């Protein structure tokens, strides 16, 4: 059988990095081929080459055994290649229907006027195929992240695709939505569409994949049927070494109180009461929109509080700006580090020192020699992979970017650090390093709050978990009471039936 798609000996070089080193890949019709690897392994680069967003340096592309060149996204479309990117390519101001049919609008006959009635019908039909009911007249900006993901998928499906590449399509989906997605994927398979599925979540690979290809550092490492792989072997191929356990929990004995919150109200937050101790890792669980990030932002002074009291080390504090919070010794590693954490076009050095430049001042001037020394200390200490501290942060991988943010807050010598989704989009290897760092910080007596949507992460790393639901703390669990079911129950306000009890 001739493969639907073959990529032979693909190389792609960026200044200073070989992003893809002689990688070959093939996809048969009706196959779900999973592509796994850590960030920087080359998955996204391969997708971009396939979609025509960037050009390869060498290698060949074959479709149905015939050699072709993909020089632009239009070429890719012509050959029936659809790519769903991780970061959505939707126009927020346009409606769902307009987005789904962007570039192939239904017109009234051959006139230049758009036939909106037909547009909505077609869009609704595609959505129905996905088992989703999203009003097609809504502007995309009003949709939730999960709904946007669905629209993105619908957009790809509305074209006649033979090859569909999905880059982390499940990142924002709930279980129910994921099941729908899998149903759609199976439907496409049956129609002979070849699917490239990129995901960090192994369960999904085992459920939907036929074959899996592992890349590491731009090189091909392993390919096998999914049935011949397990979690442990996948991790080994991806990381290149054996990991003893995923969560390196250390035993901590709870110390003195570091943070106390009494009857805090702000925005959606209602009557929050919370006590946090030194030498413990406190997790915050909850659904998206439950108020976890909002709570972090209020503690950090980024959003105002309406009423209530915050005590740091027993003293009442009232940070009205991030600056005041930082001066009190509070640090926040924001969710979405690219949007809220980093200044992309600035150097690693400048990003590390940004919150604590006063420490580097001689008169009005920044002492650059000292700044370089500090930046080097942290890039070495945290093993941030960058050619020099002068490299712009935008050229770093996700994990290294997160470490740069972490370095910034370590340099401010914070007493309390709030990690909001610290490992989102980060490799297993670097995750492990970050867990170890969090452990070390807690052992050193720094108050640590970890917000995460990955329940196993919270269960694996925390000493206590506060579960939030609709702006309130629905309950706080100690390690001995930890269970996924209890957390889900609290997070959904007891509405979700506990499925696999016992």
């Amino acid at each position: 059988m001739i493969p639907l798609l073959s990529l032979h000996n693909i190389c792609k070089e960026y200044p200073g990095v070989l992003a893809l080193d002689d990688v070959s890949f093939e996809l048969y019709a009706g196959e779900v081929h999973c592509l796994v690897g850590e960030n920087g392994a080359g998955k996204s680069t391969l997708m971009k080459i396939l979609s025509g967003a960037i050009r390869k340096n060498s290698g060949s592309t074959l479709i149905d055994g015939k050699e072709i060149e993909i020089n632009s996204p239009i070429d890719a479309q012509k050959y029936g290649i659809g790519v769903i990117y991780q970061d959505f390519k939707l126009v927020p101001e346009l409606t769902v229907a307009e987005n789904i049919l962007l570039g192939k609008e239904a017109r009234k006959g051959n006139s230049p006027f758009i036939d909106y009635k037909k547009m909505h019908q077609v869009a609704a039909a595609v959505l129905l195929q996905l088992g989703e009911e999203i009003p097609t007249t809504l502007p995309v900006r009003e949709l939730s992240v999960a709904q946007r993901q669905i629209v993105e998928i619908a957009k790809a499906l509305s074209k006649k695709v033979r090859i569909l590449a999905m880059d982390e399509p499940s990142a924002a989906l709930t279980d129910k939505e994921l099941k729908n997605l899998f149903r759609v994927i199976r439907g496409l398979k049956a129609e002979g569409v070849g699917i490239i599925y990129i995901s960090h979540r192994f369960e999904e690979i085992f459920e939907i994949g036929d074959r899996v290809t592992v890349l590491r550092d731009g090189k091909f490492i392993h390919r096998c049927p999914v049935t011949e792989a397990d979690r442990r072997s996948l991790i080994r191929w991806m990381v290149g070494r054996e990991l003893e356990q995923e969560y390196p929990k250390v035993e901590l004995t709870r110390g003195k109180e570091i943070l106390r919150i009494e009857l805090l109200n702000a925005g959606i937050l209602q009557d929050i009461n919370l006590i946090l101790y030194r030498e413990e890792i406190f997790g915050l669980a909850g659904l998206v929109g439950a108020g976890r990030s909002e709570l972090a932002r209020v503690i950090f002074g980024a959003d105002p509080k309406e009423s209530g009291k915050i005590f740091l080390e027993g003293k009442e504090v009232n940070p009205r700006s991030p600056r005041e919070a930082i001066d009190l010794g509070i640090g926040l590693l924001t969710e979405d580090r690219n949007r809220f954490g980093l200044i992309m076009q600035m150097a690693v050095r400048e990003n590390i020192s940004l919150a604590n430049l006063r420490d580097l001042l001689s008169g009005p001037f920044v002492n650059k020699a000292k700044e370089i020394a500090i930046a080097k200390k942290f890039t070495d200490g945290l093993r941030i992979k960058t050619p020099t501290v002068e490299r712009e942060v935008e050229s770093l991988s996700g994990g290294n970017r997160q470490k740069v943010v972490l370095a910034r807050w370590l340099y401010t010598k914070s007493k309390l650090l709030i990690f909001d989704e610290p490992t989102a989009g980060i490799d297993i290897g670097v995750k492990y390093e970050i867990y170890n760092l969090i452990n070390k910080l807690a052992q050193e007596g720094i108050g640590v709050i970890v917000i995460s949507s990955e329940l196993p992460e919270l269960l694996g790393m925390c000493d206590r978990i506060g579960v939030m639901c609709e702006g309130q703390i629905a309950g706080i669990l100690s390690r001995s009471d930890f269970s996924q079911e209890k957390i889900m129950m609290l997070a959904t306000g007891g509405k979700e039936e506990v499925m696999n009890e016992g």
Partner: protein
Amino acid sequence: MKGESSPTAISTALRRSLSEFGIGIALILEIIIFSQLSPYFFTAENILNVSLQSSITAIIAAGMTFVILTAGIDLSVGSVVALSGVLATSALKFDVPLSTGFPLAILVALIIGIVSGSIAGVFITKFSITPFIVTLALMTIWRGTAFIYTDGRPVWGLPEEFSMLGSGRIFEVPVPTLIMLAVYIVSYIVLKYTRFGRYVYAVGGNREAARLAGINTNRILFCVYMICGALAGISGILLASRMNSGQPNAGLMYELDVIAAVVVGGTSLFGGRGSIVGTFIGAMLIGILRNGLNLLNVGSYVQMVVLGVVILLAVMLDQIRKR
């Protein structure tokens, strides 16, 4: 500092300076071409002349660089030039000795600029109105104010000594040229070596991330508009001095020349990227172009077209280089 001299470090440094470098090459090319075409071009006198002619827009362009680095824009600078010119010259006509009147006039010019910048800053930071709109409004407001105040007539009859400021020379170098050089040296130091300069880049690069890193972003924005306004105010009195009168229609369309200098100099309108050296080269490139075309007797209509083409070419080259 081993890492700093490694090949990758050098390539990083090279890449960073290439934007200034590229435009610098354009400047050198331009100088060579005009030197060939006109024997008078590359004489000390003409070089000083160019520096004098470019000085006023160049001084404002330094301020505009601060603003554009924060992803802002200030369209009001031309009108501030006019208002500061007419008010400063009016101050000169008070019945006080020149030793008081002179500093007073300069003070008035500075205050006008700072007030304008502060008003822009308040609307931009406190009411979150986009800089384009705020400064567009201020542009017509200040222009109108200048006309109302003078009833459309220039302020004449100024003391002769006043012309020293715009037309005087110290060791053969025109005073505005010296002021321009001072402004650029200070701006360079501020942007490159101070915490404030770092914050300007940070705010322009990612405003929310900068705020969450503890930077008082509103204060930075406020300051850059004040700096830009103050420099426009100074330019206003310099121009009035050169014309020996306060003209309510002075500085018309200056904002465009100034923005052109900044953009040709490689500073991104999206903020966070650019340099004061680039702006200086950009301003000189445009100034030399004007001067050279004048020497070659190219009419002013053609000059407008040529200038537009050069702006497009310069920015196009910059884009190609980035790929």
